[in-house]
């Protein structure tokens, strides 16, 4: 009989449903097949013209009906699609979820094409005044909704019948992990028996790409898109902007067992630590990331030698991969070179607000399937980063526990520890 309370007397949190969309496809089956085959979802950009752009490749999701309808519409559809798969798998009424919603999604902005349409709709000489005047005359619910930060969660709440005030959050590239953490905490506090945690990001617009490009964060390996994301390689030159979503149905183990649900994994622990060093760079000694990993292990009640596999943040930027290696070596010591660690981003790129959730979903599948997805494009190992990155080919392995890292701009560091089975 599994223990229903954890080492700190809190309810054990199980995962009973998983949904995923990435540039590799819709749903767990397609994604897992591609991921374990070492297939890349990175491709030339076709959504908008690439004239003048230094980076002309991405991992956009181009195959959904909303793919050409702007960031808000696509982010909603990504979230809804993943949530539908997860709630269906959990065997919960699709219209009456019966627990709160935690959504990680990108900050919203009025789409440039809408701004242009407003401008074209009037003739007052001052552009700002004109846009305001036309906007109020038009009073378009769609345009209004697309620029409200709470809209996507509100619509998801309507669609799935989640309870109470939904929380939309941003911790930059750690957002997806934070959404899961908030769900775990709500269950542990006894506020609910189940929670729906979703990370979704469909915000790969030209402006988003240009912004990251101006910060020198993106790979410019345009000629060979599938090879562009190369975490832990010596010649890594930035991340690849990408889109996607994942949803987890989190449930107290007690509630999951009571209703006879299949337990897909356990959310053992969450840890976080903010960095006060710089807006985009990490403290050189890696201490905040180290603290986040240690906090997650402590929260999970596991020691360093009880982690079987690490799902890396592994963005493929020179800075991140170096810092991640430094912090992991500090926590795990000599053993770090023996722990398999791979980066899903080598295949799907960096899905920003969704990344933590997508990588948690893939971590859970790694344990269930007993297969570790590879780090592809590992052709020129960085000698300064001595890790077993599961290079280029998947590996069969018995994986009982996973550490998944998420780090983001603004000093965000969030780590999750997951386990295959309850204790």
């Amino acid at each position, binding site marked *: 009989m599994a223990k229903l309370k954890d080492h700190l007397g809190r309810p054990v949190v199980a995962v009973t449903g998983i949904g995923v969309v990435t540039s590799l496809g819709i749903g767990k089956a397609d994604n897992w097949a591609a991921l374990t085959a070492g297939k890349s979802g990175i491709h030339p950009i076709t959504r908008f013209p690439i004239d003048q752009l230094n980076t002309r490749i991405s991992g956009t999701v181009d195959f959904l009906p909303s793919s050409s309808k702007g960031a808000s519409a696509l982010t909603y559809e990504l979230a809804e699609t993943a949530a539908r798969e997860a709630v269906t798998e959990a065997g919960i009424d699709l219209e009456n979820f019966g627990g709160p919603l935690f959504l990680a999604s990108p900050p919203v*902005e*009025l789409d440039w094409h809408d701004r242009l349409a407003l401008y074209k709709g009037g003739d007052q000489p001052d552009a700002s005044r004109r846009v305001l005047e036309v906007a109020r005359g038009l009073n378009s619910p769609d345009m209004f909704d697309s620029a*409200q930060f709470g809209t996507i969660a509100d619509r998801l709440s309507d669609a799935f019948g989640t309870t109470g005030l939904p929380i939309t959050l941003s911790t930059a590239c750690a957002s997806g992990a934070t959404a899961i953490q908030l769900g775990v905490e709500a269950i542990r506090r006894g506020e609910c028996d189940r929670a729906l945690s979703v990370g979704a990001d469909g915000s790969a617009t030209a402006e988003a790409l240009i*912004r990251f490009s101006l910060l020198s964060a993106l790979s410019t390996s345009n000629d060979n898109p599938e090879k562009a994301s190369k975490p832990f390689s010596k010649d890594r030159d930035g991340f690849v902007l990408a889109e996607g979503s994942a949803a987890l149905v989190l449930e107290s183990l007690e509630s999951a067992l009571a209703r006879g649900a299949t337990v897909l994994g356990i959310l053992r622990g969450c840890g976080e630590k903010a960095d006060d060093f710089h807006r985009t760079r990490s403290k050189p000694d890696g201490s905040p990331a180290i603290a986040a990993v240690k906090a997650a292990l402590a929260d999970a009640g596991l020691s360093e030698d009880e982690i079987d596999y690490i799902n890396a943040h592994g963005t493929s930027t020179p800075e991140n991969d170096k810092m991640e290696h430094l912090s992991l070596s500090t926590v795990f010591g000599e053993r770090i070179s023996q722990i398999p660690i791979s980066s899903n981003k080598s295949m799907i790129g960096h899905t920003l607000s969704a990344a933590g959730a997508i990588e948690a979903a893939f971590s859970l599948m790694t344990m269930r399937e007993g297969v570790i997805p590879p780090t592809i494009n590992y052709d020129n190992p960085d000698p300064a980063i001595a890790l077993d990155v599961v290079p280029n080919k998947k590996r069969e392995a018995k994986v009982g526990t996973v550490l998944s890292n998420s780090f983001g701009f603004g000093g965000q560091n969030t780590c999750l520890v997951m386990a295959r089975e309850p204790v």
Partner: protein
Amino acid sequence: MKSYDVVITGIGLVSSLGEGPDAHWQKLTATGTRPVLDVERFAPYTVHPLPEIDWNLQIVKRGDQRQMETWQRLGTYVAGLALDDAGIKTDEALCSTMDMVVAAGGGERDVAVDNDILAASESRADFDILLNEKLTTELRPTLFLAQLSNLLAGNISIVHKVTGSSRTFMGEEGAGVAAVETAAARVRSGQSTHMLVGGAFQTEHPDMLLGYELGAYLHRGVWKPVWQRTGSEGGGVVSGSGGAFLVLESREHAEKRGARIYAGLGPVRSGRARRKRGELSSTIETLLKAANLPQGPLLALSGASGGHAATSAEKTAMDAHAGLAARGFGTLTGHMKEAQFPFAVALAALAVHNKASYPVFDAASERNFDGIPEQVLATAVGYHQFEGLALVSAA
């Protein structure tokens, strides 16, 4: 599980009325305080502008100030005021273990670049290519960071060294409600001993007005108190620049370090009415019931925005409770969106702490309140969606 008492030990406030809890208490309890209005800069819209602020007082490094636009500077400044007020700001051990939830929208875009692109579009048929040309050459690389929602929290970490944890909630007034609710729940459950929670809104930018006006929510024409805008031109909301941060602690933690306690933070309740189905009134009623309101007269700091449907529903619900004496502080500060609910909670705590009520802000619409407020209600009913309230009690 053990449950901890949640108390408020620090308050940081900025609005058009001034800065700090004392200045706000003085202004808001004086009779005949008039709102500070700017009716010209964004005409036909009225805004409550920021007061003059010496950023150096809370953001010492000029380099840090340069990395932010006004919204992030404002939030970072107000957070600093709250930390100072709680006696935590210079305590490195307390700051480095402090957890933070910030309610945020987005930062300011570069108006000059945007308008330049729009002007250039007059003579170009290839707008998307024009966009690439202009954005790649005219955007300041670091402006992106000043726009990112979570970088207000990021700047608070950098400037004030608050590094326990950092989370940013988005979603207009609801973000402020959820931030306070989550922060309180963390302290109550023992997940956190001390927390920084709040937000800021900088309305003096065309896009910040546009966010409302895409839904025709802004009031136009002659300014009126928040409860009296029905039937006026426009949608009823008059926005204001400002911010509110609170330091929440467990009573044990606060007492152990000898902190001054303003008030206890009682139940915090949130809701999501499906307003298109007409659920708003019943949701507000449900929230009021869930807050276990005391019998008899009760002062209520209402974050009403003036938005016609939402404010009218809130007024009706409050009027139905004979003892409720509402104070629509938006009359004097304007609507501060994500910061509105933390602001309401802060003003409620000040009334409890000072053992005195606020006079009516609108004699035609608000009831008198006599006596010492032992408990005070704080509300925020979003202009478009999401609702919440909290009960604040004598320490």
